[in-house]
């Protein structure tokens, strides 16, 4: 429990009252945890329900709703805390030559601590939510582990 409180302010889930008399009398250390389903058939990870982490931007235990677009991409960077960069590849049609050209976009996506360690090359399904920071508007809903040979940034994977 103690490793959750790494910040200077007490980390807790916003709408949960932890100090009701019933809980005080019981003296159990478990406490109440708020979690919700995000809809669209996405399963809630076990760690979201049973875990201890506090993340207000998590789609399962925080204050964000997933609505709008659902995207799929391949993870290229996991160096930020609680957020990853995914790469979305697509083909752009050039009418003059009747052909396609490869293009890609990098999207920063918030990832909840409910998903264990995510590696570069994994495929991720993310849902649109309200702006969570200057550049993050998506939240990871599902991780599909995947092995990539070679440099992830040089791959072209069309979904």
């Amino acid at each position, binding site marked *: 429990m103690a490793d959750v*409180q790494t910040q*200077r*302010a*007490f980390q807790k889930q916003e709408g949960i009252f932890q*100090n*009701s008399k019933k809980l*005080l009398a019981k003296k159990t250390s478990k406490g109440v945890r708020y979690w919700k389903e995000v809809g669209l058939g996405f399963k809630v990870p076990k760690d979201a329900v049973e875990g201890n982490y506090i993340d207000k931007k998590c789609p399962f235990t925080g204050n964000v709703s997933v609505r709008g677009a659902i995207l799929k991409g391949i993870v290229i960077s996991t160096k930020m805390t609680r957020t990853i960069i995914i790469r979305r590849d697509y083909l752009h049609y050039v009418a003059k030559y009747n052909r396609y050209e490869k293009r890609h976009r990098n999207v920063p996506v918030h990832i909840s601590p409910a998903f264990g360690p995510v590696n570069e090359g994994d495929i991720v399904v993310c849902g649109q939510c309200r702006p969570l920071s*200057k*550049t993050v508007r998506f939240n990871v809903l599902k991780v599909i582990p995947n092995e990539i040979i070679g440099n992830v940034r040089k791959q072209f994977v069309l979904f």
Partner: protein
Amino acid sequence: MGISRDSRHKRRLTGGRMPIHKKKRAFEKGRQAAMTKLVSGEKRVRRLRVRGGNFKFRALRLSDGNFSWASEGVAKKAKIVEVVYHPSNNELVRTKTLTRGAIVQVDATPFKQWYLKKYNVDLGAKKTQKKDQPAQPEVKKSRSLQKKLEQRMKDRVIDNLVAEQFQNQRLLVRITSRPGQSGRADGYILEGKELEFYVKKVEQKKK
């Protein structure tokens, strides 16, 4: 003043500059922060007309607020004594600035009186009582009141750390209102794990 809340002065995600093709607009403007100070006995609140014709109440000096004791379900108006901790900035503690999220010490007497009335238990009373002190005059209680008190005593639970605080006549409270926006410093009494957390932080600071 020139405080503007636009995003046009920031760079893009790619690092590229954004061309500035408009002047600052009035709907993007920001105002100076309130920096509400804790001054005993004084209350200074200014009214501001904001966008849409609505009003914000900028508290410049405050000395008391309405604090709720969540597990008991009461809120009482009490005097703020001291700012003790702030998670964002230590400077705010030194200058006794009241903001949302500040941890302050509050006078415990309104809550003590309420508790005495509800449960007939004097929190923070010294355990040993001198024999030569005159006994407190017994207030006559009606039978229905006594029955109610018995019932309440059965379910009475109190957090030990909170009960200890009553000994010093001070309770630790977290401010949850925004004094620079609403003009009030309201909050809730810390209990349980949160209380332990902040008590530790305050003691660390003292060292």
